[in-house]
């Protein structure tokens, strides 16, 4: 009997040990170790930075970290003193500005939307639609001069209260109308065109009435402020000489 013998397995082909490149052999562990080291270090510094960096805000103050100022207590004392000085300066400036502020009864004229506000402190007592300066320029064809019909801006005061004001026409009124200048003063006087009352603000500027009430709300005047009859009367009877007028 022939005993079958298990076929001898073919010997596995010898695994040829591929020679590793030298660089691979050295670099791999180094990179691996470096990565581990970086991770540990990053964790450590993240932990530290949470405590040691005083300011992390994204602004100029961030530059003043605890490391930069050295002793924290000294730095706190220094900044506290600066804050106190700034607060003191702040209070002084506020007091100074407050001393300039309008108070009591005053008038505010808004040339942007042609409104006049009679104010008592911060309260609007009366709101009137008015006409203010047209802003046009008029040149005198016969003389080297010109006028700009703007309502002046800033702080003024009522220097005179006038009943039944009379208009003494200035030169521009004749130039504008294409007329020659009158030889006598009487030819300049025109009654009834300024309404029943006028408040004189100086430099020829008045708050007065108008014949053209339907033009209220428009920029049509030569610099004066025209007010409707009812509002004018109320305002005239309320304000006194010396009342401040703020025109913006």
């Amino acid at each position: 009997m022939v005993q079958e013998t298990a076929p001898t397995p073919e010997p596995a082909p010898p695994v040829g040990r591929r020679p590793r490149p030298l660089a691979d052999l050295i670099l791999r562990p180094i990179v691996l170790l470096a990565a581990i080291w970086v991770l540990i270090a990053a964790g450590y510094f993240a932990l530290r930075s949470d405590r040691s960096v005083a300011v992390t805000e994204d602004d100029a103050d961030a530059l003043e970290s605890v490391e930069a100022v050295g002793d924290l207590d000294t730095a706190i004392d220094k900044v506290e003193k600066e804050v106190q000085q700034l607060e003191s300066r702040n209070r002084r400036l506020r007091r100074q500005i407050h001393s300039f502020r309008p108070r009591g009864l005053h008038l505010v004229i808004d040339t942007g939307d042609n409104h006049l506000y009679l104010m008592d402190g911060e309260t609007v007592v009366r709101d009137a639609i008015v006409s203010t300066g047209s802003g046009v320029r008029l040149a005198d064809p016969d003389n080297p001069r010109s006028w700009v019909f703007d309502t002046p801006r800033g702080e003024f005061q009522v220097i005179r209260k006038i009943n039944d004001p009379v208009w003494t026409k200035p030169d521009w009124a004749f130039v504008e109308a294409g007329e020659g200048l009158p030889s006598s003063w009487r030819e300049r006087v025109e009654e009834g065109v300024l309404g029943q009352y006028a408040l004189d603000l100086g430099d020829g500027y008045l708050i007065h009435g108008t014949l053209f009430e339907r033009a209220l709300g428009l920029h049509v005047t030569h610099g004066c402020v025209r007010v409707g009859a009812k509002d004018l009367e109320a305002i005239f009877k309320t304000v006194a000489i010396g009342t401040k007028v703020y025109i913006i």
Partner: protein
Amino acid sequence: MRAPTPVLAALLVTSVALSTGARTEATGATAARAADGRQDRYRSLLKERRALHRENTILEIEAKSAAAKSPYIFLDLEAATLEFRVRGKVLKTYRISSLSTDSRGKEPVNAEELWSKFSGPLMVEEVQGGQPELVPPDPEAGRETGLLFSDPNQLREETGAVEVDTDAGILGIEAPTDYWIRVKEPLMLHIHSPKDQSTSRQALQRFSDVLSSIGSAVSSLWGGGSSARDADVTIWLTVEPEIAQQLHHSLLPGETIWLVPPHRARL
């Protein structure tokens, strides 16, 4: 895998050092908490100092301006407002819909950069379309008709009209909604309104921009130095048409505009 001995040694040393540091910190936890409190205090003081410094800068501008009788204007690029003030009081505020440094509104303004360039007063020199010329009527024409231009009563009597608006400027001046404000400093403010942003207007604006850049390029090719206008910064302020018109009437040459220092400005 065998790590080279020097590398392992380095790792070991580092780890020991780090663990020692960590142990030390753990034992000093109480001290660290106290330090944290001081650092928080320091941090809040810095913030307070910064806020006060900015506020005082604004107050100093205000105090200086309020000492005079003239009005002054605060342009706040962050809050997008234009405030008219007299004697330390805000008398009117205009809200700006958007601010940009280009006509199409694509480039938002950099408030800090603008403040660093224009922290001083900006003196209004010219408002485009301001002070239109009034042409007086021909005196001869009046003589021919026998009517005087300035006398509405006479005209009413002559013509039988109910009310005659012959007074010069009676119809008012229609202020524009798209115009520039030139200040003495190298800065231009351009006011415009949404209604001006029609397709044709945008196309015109782009065409104008292209022409302007071609002009600059040609100028530089010819070796010409840049003009003062080239150096200008233009801020485009988009506002409602009504506001644009009111602003046109409100701003006069000679008035002063101040940029409000932004919160992150270097003061």
